[in-house]
């Protein structure tokens, strides 16, 4: 492993290190690379063209349909899928479930990268991207705007996610003190992150509240924000299942035994979680349906489309998740995850382009330009490239290095000490480092070798 990571003492060392890390690990000519590289390059060209010639040059957006695939899929669906991060950190750090600990880093990394890349997609969708700083610097603060809230929460959430994932970078660079500081911030960042996620996942739905009359009544409801929030739970977890399944194969060489062994239990557990959330979601949908007296719509074509989405892509995967987790059948769970993800995509697209202006006949309805789809693919591939680069160099699917685990112990020790000092001063002497045979002083600079 990169023993040289341990000795970065100067900027020159840092450059040497980065240069070494930039070298590709693994084969350059793989089917994935061969397909994704030209897509990414073309995507960059198309984005440059869009910057010069305006949005209309690479999209099919129109005065009737101001939002298209870049918002409906990249931003909205992408953010829903990134919801696995806040759900999983809730389970691991709030409910203290060690069962899911092995996949936290991968999930948080994916969440962080997703937000970064989909914020990027948002930037190219803006008419004046350089003005994206306006709501941040106060030119001006649109305080009554839901989007203002969503924008700020995106920014703050990316910061929180970065703090959550940054211990990984500190481990990669071998920066012990930084690793300790960042490690102690994790819980706070998680709490912040879950709070922010609740608000911006629902906030993305709230963006449509003023599009009353433009969104088909089967989808429009004052409860859109709650529906978006709940669906982000099982959407995010389904993505974790999907991504975890692929990683098991593709990144097997970077996984330690603990990761490999825990995979099955984790997938089954996540399947149960999805099933539960989907049951809740389904009941909410039924409630909204009955409250709105939407029965007459069911016999229309739009009613059939609604049933496909709710029954075919929510109820059926929910039942499949239940079955798969009861019978411990990973395959069924994976199929359910894919169906669920398709359902989320369709749901978000319904709100933004399909059931939006549903009364506009199909020939004039928005259909994405191939360039929009191409750039979307380029963004997804680019994110996978970055994810792969990080996984191949940093402890994502493995235990952190010994010294990092020691740092975590120190953090825990100091916390217990602080609590004891507050609560039971007389029992300080009883506190020892649990399970550790090594005594690691708090201010030691050198670190043991990585096993």
């Amino acid at each position, binding site marked *: 492993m990169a023993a040289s990571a341990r000795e970065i003492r100067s900027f020159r060392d840092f450059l040497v290190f980065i240069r070494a890390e930039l070298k590709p690990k693994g084969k350059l000519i793989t089917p994935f690379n061969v397909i994704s590289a030209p897509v990414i390059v073309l995507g960059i060209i198309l984005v440059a063209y869009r910057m010069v010639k305006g949005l209309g040059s690479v999209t099919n957006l129109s005065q009737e349909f101001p939002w298209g695939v870049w918002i409906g899929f990249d931003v909205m669906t992408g953010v829903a899928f990134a919801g696995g991060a806040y759900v999983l950190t809730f389970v691991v750090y*709030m409910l*203290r479930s060690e069962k899911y600990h092995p996949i936290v880093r991968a999930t948080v990394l994916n969440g962080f990268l997703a937000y970064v890349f989909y914020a990027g997609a948002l930037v190219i969708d803006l008419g004046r991207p350089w003005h994206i700083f306006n709501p941040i610097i106060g030119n001006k603060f649109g305080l009554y705007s*839901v989007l203002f809230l969503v924008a700020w929460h995106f920014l703050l959430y990316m910061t929180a996610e970065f703090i959550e994932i940054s211990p990984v970078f500190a481990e990669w660079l071998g920066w012990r003190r930084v690793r300790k500081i960042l490690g102690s911030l994790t819980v706070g960042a998680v709490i912040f992150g879950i709070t922010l996620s609740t608000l911006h996942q629902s906030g993305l739905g709230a963006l449509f509240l003023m599009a009353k009359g433009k969104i088909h009544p089967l989808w429009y409801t004052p409860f859109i924000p709650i529906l978006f929030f709940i669906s982000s739970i099982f959407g995010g977890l389904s993505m974790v299942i999907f991504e975890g399944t692929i990683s098991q194969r593709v990144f097997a060489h970077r996984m330690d035994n603990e990761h490999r062994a825990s995979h099955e239990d984790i997938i089954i557990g996540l399947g149960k979680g999805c099933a539960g959330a989907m049951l809740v979601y389904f009941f909410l949908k039924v409630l909204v349906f009955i409250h709105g007296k939407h029965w007459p719509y069911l016999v229309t074509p739009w009613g059939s489309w609604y049933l496909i989405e709710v029954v075919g892509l929510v109820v059926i995967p929910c039942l499949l998740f239940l079955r798969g987790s009861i019978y411990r059948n990973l395959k069924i769970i994976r199929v359910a995850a894919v169906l669920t993800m398709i359902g989320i995509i369709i749901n978000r697209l319904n709100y933004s382009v399909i059931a939006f202006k549903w009364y506009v006949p199909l020939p004039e309805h928005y259909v994405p330009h191939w360039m929009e789809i191409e750039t979307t693919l380029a963004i997804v591939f680019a994110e996978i490239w970055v994810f792969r680069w990080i996984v191949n160099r940093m402890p994502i699917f493995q235990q952190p290095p010994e010294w990092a685990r020691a740092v975590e112990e120190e953090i825990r020790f100091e916390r217990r000490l602080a609590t004891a000092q507050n609560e039971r001063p007389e029992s300080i002497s009883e506190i020892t480092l649990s399970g550790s045979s090594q005594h690691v002083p708090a201010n030691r600079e050198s670190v043991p070798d990585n096993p």
Partner: protein
Amino acid sequence: MDRRSFLKAVSFGIAGLTTSPFAATKRAHAKHSLSDDFVAVLVDTTRCIGCRSCEEACAEAHHLPIPDVSDDSVFEKERQTSTSQLTVVNRYRTEKGEVFVKKQCMHCNEPACAAACLVKAMQKRKEGPVTWQDNCMGCRICMVSCPFDIPKFEYHSWNPRIQKCDFCWERLMRGEEPACVEACPQEALVFGRRKELIEEAKRRIYQNPDKYYHHIYGEHEVGGTGWLYISAVPFEQIGFKTDVGTTAYPEYTKGFLYAVPFVLILWPAFLTAIRSLTKVEEE
């Protein structure tokens, strides 16, 4: 419970509070009494003859290409406003003959676009008009939110603007009437304070009950608009959306915005509590 993490959690929550729109609470009710004084225009569609002088005058006042008003073929299709035409006149065939209707931004009392805009590029001025400013990011949420689908986006510009009627804001500041009002030969457009114009509209309907349909469009629609219409026929026959309701559109987001400060405070508290409750004491 660990004091440090509790304090951290609560301080994160309070830090988050500073971005919450508590200001939303004092917004809504003040406007209703202010709206009497907003500038407004009364459009009497029984007087409009479709001469399109208003379209010409608007184009001239805004340095946009001047439409050829002698070409009547434009009336064959219902037109929308565009990035180069901030107002258009449409023709409708009704039981009472041809009716011409001028279409432009309605300058709502409580505009959806201004509430939706995260940088206050769309702004309701205190005099009444709703105008667009240059700090716009081009996110187009105003287009998604407007019940009348008015804002139009310059998709083919690298530095796009949103184009819509601005109530001739600059002329108003110089003490002049909107260009379209001044140009109208039939006095189909009358400019004044909203309250007076509603009274004038009611007077016209009252004095000519057979001539007019008994409704002023814009008096209550979406909480009231600055452009008021009276007509000889029901409004759905002349291209108006009659299902927009009387609720001001920003009200629809109120529930969500009010929930924000509660989530920002309660969530960190609950989460910290859960974490502390699930703590396994180590000895």
